[in-house]
């Protein structure tokens, strides 16, 4: 169905919902690469004006990717909770934006609303929001998850300790883990991206982290971010806490990742059956990122931010412990510079949280993007204010295996300090007992014969 908006004597026509959403998107290189971006400044605002007047109900009747050929669309439509949607069913997208910022939309109300929202509604409203709106609303959303630690509590900021090594050398990885733990990192997960996806190599690393965790009684969980099918192969013998997978917002994108919803379901059930969590049973860890569908030529003419929000519908099905966007990893052809990366990071965090996901962020960039560590400091601070559940902790922010820059152990100390946040409570107790942090969260000087260095 076409949508129209007139400005002075000029009539803008948007031939369908996905075109309207794409043209209303704040500019980013990926949409331009796909030929979907608005052609001028005025067209973008015309699309936003038209989108603001669009009733939310339209999203339940017009799919951006056909229901018949895409299992993510079927998941979104079939799982939509009409009762939860009822209180806002009379709103337009613009009215939803104004309401989200109002005092009526408090934490409990937003939590109850989440199952009534579809990814496309959330993506649409985000396109009408300024950065401060994305922060203000996300901060009101509370999504708390549990395995051995509690992640996402108000006043807490957790980190994934990411101790990657170019050849998966266990000693090299262990050195980075020790460094991270002594800098109070790792309460969301100790998560390694393996250089090799071979079951034997993955298993070796899983045993190494698990032994370390047991030896020092560290209240956290581990993950080797191998392909989900590799995890399924070794799940009976290897100590798997969380099952990881990269996911996308269309069936074809997921195909390009070598997965289906059924494979994810199988992995979810297998991980649940291990019953390794001590205080909770959330066992899945997902990563996403704008641009993955376009790079797999699987975007169906839908803008990259809307597709990204659809990936959250996939994540939501499996009650994950952690979800994070890897926001600047994909490169400048999708997010060109610091400005675009910052905007995308705030959008992804907002959309995920509003849909009820435990969102974290890999605040990052590659060397061929127009971004640097100052941009990461900005996004880090903004996401901290927005209540992001967790960020990455990488030695010196420099990942020597994946060759990109993210956030460091020190960055988390900075953010906790300026915002008065603490690590997850279980981990915080351990840090205190180990003499790593004091009660105010200050880093304590360590003896050379500290237990972890023995």
């Amino acid at each position, binding site marked *: 169905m076409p949508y129209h908006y007139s400005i002075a004597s000029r009539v803008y026509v948007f031939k369908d919902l996905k075109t309207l959403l794409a043209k209303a998107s704040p500019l980013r290189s990926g949409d331009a690469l796909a030929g979907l971006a608005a052609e001028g400044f005025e067209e973008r605002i015309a699309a936003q004006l038209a989108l603001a007047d669009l009733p939310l109900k339209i999203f339940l009747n017009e799919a951006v990717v056909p229901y018949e050929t895409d299992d993510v669309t079927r998941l979104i439509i079939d799982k939509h909770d009409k009762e939860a949607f009822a209180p806002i069913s009379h709103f337009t997208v613009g009215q939803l934006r104004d309401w989200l910022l109002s005092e009526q939309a408090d934490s409990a109300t937003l939590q109850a609303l989440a199952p009534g929202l579809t990814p496309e509604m959330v993506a649409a409203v985000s396109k009408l929001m300024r950065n401060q709106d994305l922060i203000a609303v996300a901060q009101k959303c509370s999504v708390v998850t549990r395995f051995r630690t509690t992640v996402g509590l108000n006043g807490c900021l957790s980190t994934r300790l990411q101790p990657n090594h170019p050849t998966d050398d266990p*000693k090299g990885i262990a050195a980075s883990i020790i460094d991270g733990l002594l800098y109070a990192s790792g309460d969301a997960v100790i998560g390694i991206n393996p250089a090799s996806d071979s079951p034997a190599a993955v298993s070796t690393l899983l045993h190494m982290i698990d032994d370390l965790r047991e030896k020092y009684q560290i209240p956290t969980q581990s993950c080797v971010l191998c392909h989900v099918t590799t995890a399924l192969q070794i799940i009976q013998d290897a100590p798997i806490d969380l099952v990881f997978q990269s996911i996308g917002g269309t069936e074809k994108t997921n195909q390009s990742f070598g997965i289906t919803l059924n494979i994810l379901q199988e992995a979810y059930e297998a991980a649940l059956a291990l019953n390794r969590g001590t205080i909770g049973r959330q066992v899945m860890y997902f990563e996403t990122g704008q641009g993955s569908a376009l790079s797999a030529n699987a975007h169906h003419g839908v803008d990259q931010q809307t597709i990204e929000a659809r990936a959250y519908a996939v994540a939501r099905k499996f009650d994950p412990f952690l979800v994070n966007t890897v926001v600047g990893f994909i490169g400048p052809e999708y997010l060109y510079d610091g400005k675009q990366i910052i905007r995308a990071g705030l959008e992804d965090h907002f959309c995920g949280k509003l849909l009820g996901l435990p969102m974290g962020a890999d605040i990052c960039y590659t060397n061929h993007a127009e971004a640097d560590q100052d941009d990461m400091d900005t996004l880090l601070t903004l996401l901290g204010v927005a209540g992001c559940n967790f960020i990455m902790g*990488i*030695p010196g922010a420099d990942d020597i295996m994946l060759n990109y820059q993210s956030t460091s152990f020190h960055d988390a100390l900075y953010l906790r300090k300026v915002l008065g946040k603490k690590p997850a409570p279980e981990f915080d107790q351990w840090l205190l007992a180990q003499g790593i942090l004091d009660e105010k969260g200050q880093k304590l000087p360590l003896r050379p014969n500290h237990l972890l260095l023995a």
Partner: protein
Amino acid sequence: MKKKQYSKSVEPDPWQSLKTYTDARIALGHTGGAIPLKEVLQFKLAFAHAKDAVYSELDWPKLEQRLEQLAIPYLKLHSRASSRSVYLQRPDLGRSLNEASVASLKKMPSAETDIAIVLADGLSATAINQHALPLLQRLLPLLQKANFQIAPIAVVEQARVAIGDEIGHLLGTQLVMVLIGERPGLSSPYSMGAYLTYAPLPGLTDEKRNCISNIRPEGLPYEMACQKLYYLIQESLRLKLSGVDLKDNTTNLFLP
């Protein structure tokens, strides 16, 4: 009266010995919660090298001088990406040749060849400036000794890997090898990759290629890269394929 003086604030980490196990930036120390300035500046220096690599250009005088010593003709080509800024945002334009380049390839006298070699700036022209000729000086004698017919060498600016498919196709060769500057990392700003495609044709995707990456003296040294490539080239021409079906059975021999 003695004037008050503040003490130095950087706290070193007592686990410096762990640095022997990894090149990761561990045991940086801290001042408050922050990274000490010395380490911040080391990071910025590595980043500066990586950024300079992204914007580096092919060093024509040096390349031409050394290409002439190879006694194989060479061609200068350009992709459809007119500048680095366009190149970074439009990978599609970096994958195909501009009109002048297509015309100059079409003017070439036709000759049956086994292999075409493409030097592409990619994301680090410095990598090509440093490593392409030393590798070719080792590889070409092996190929010539085995009586493989070699097409003129194409040197392309603002190019991505897949541009080799168009060049190989226009040259009518059996196998194309693209040497290209890889995306710079902080620890390896000048690293070169080599990609092989049998029966090159525009539109082929990555699963049709074999790749050897991290070619540089501190990574995969020239001699080892040369042996791996020579093995893969022979096997590709013998089996008439490349990509996931062509296994690099030499891998274990050369792992350090």
